[in-house]
């Protein structure tokens, strides 16, 4: 079992203070993907205030392991906003 830390950057989250023990890096990746979905599901409209959502996963020393990013891109076809 290894401890992994899941830090979400969404403009309001705190760093993960204690991490979670998981069996290996593959489980951490699976958890990160699922967790991202669960968190993004709750954001809704607020996501568009920043248009960027990031999750950095590190080990207990703070060493960066992998990052998940969710980005919004508005194209020319967007109607004008008031």
């Amino acid at each position, binding site marked *: 079992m290894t401890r992994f830390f899941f830090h979400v950057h969404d403009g309001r989250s*705190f760093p993960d203070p*204690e991490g*979670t023990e*998981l069996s290996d890096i593959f489980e951490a990746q699976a*958890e990160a993907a699922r967790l991202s979905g*669960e968190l993004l599901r*709750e954001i809704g409209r607020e996501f568009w205030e920043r248009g960027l959502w990031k999750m950095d996963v590190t080990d207990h020393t703070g060493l960066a392991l992998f990052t998940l990013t969710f980005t919004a891109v508005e194209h020319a076809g967007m109607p004008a906003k008031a």
Partner: protein
Amino acid sequence: MLNPFVEKLTRCGQLSDAEKLILGQVTAAVIDVKPHTDLILEGDRPSTVYVLMSGFAYRYKILADGARQIVSYMVPGDLCNPHIFILKRMDHTIATLSACKVAELSATDIVRMTDHHPGIARALWWATLVDESVSREWISNIGRRRAIERVAHLLCEMVLRLRIVGLVEDDRFELPVTQVELADTVAVTNVHMNRVINSLRRLGLITLRGKNVTIIDLEKLQKLAGFTPDYLHINGTFLGNPSQSAT
């Protein structure tokens, strides 16, 4: 020493004193069950009605991919279900979370009691309806609430259910459930549950140390959860109180 089964069923206001005595007698004999022990498995033939007299138990289902969904918690005084023996097979597994004391009632016990004591029949009916109501709330909880709201709601519910059977002191109670089990209850990942618990702590709403939960601000927790206690139906039935002399 209060009998949690009698305490809980008394809430529906349908039991005479004699009926309360009978319910106490029929749950006097208990068996000790170790933590994390299955009492009856999904698929088994249900012939026994389990009444939880002390400790925590839960009902769960295992999906084809091995994922577990915990579908309810049982606290002292809860039974499952009064008429389970009518079904051919169990559609869920019942297991202990902590060490438990369990009373076992047979189909004959139930039929005999309900045939001769209408108050008991109505009380068991009420208990079943409350279980159904709680299930509906849990469906709404998992379906629509944000993760932190789901956990807040669950904790608000546990406070009330445990208070009825005298297991809450100064907004403190024992919840012998691991974070993984909590995650499997409100359908979020383990890591998400970790986040939620830390958020609830940071918001000054709860403390959680092992199995000891303290609700620091119940009103704020209820507001976060959008919790109202109505669905627990703890204030009786529409039928009114029977005459005390009925047996």
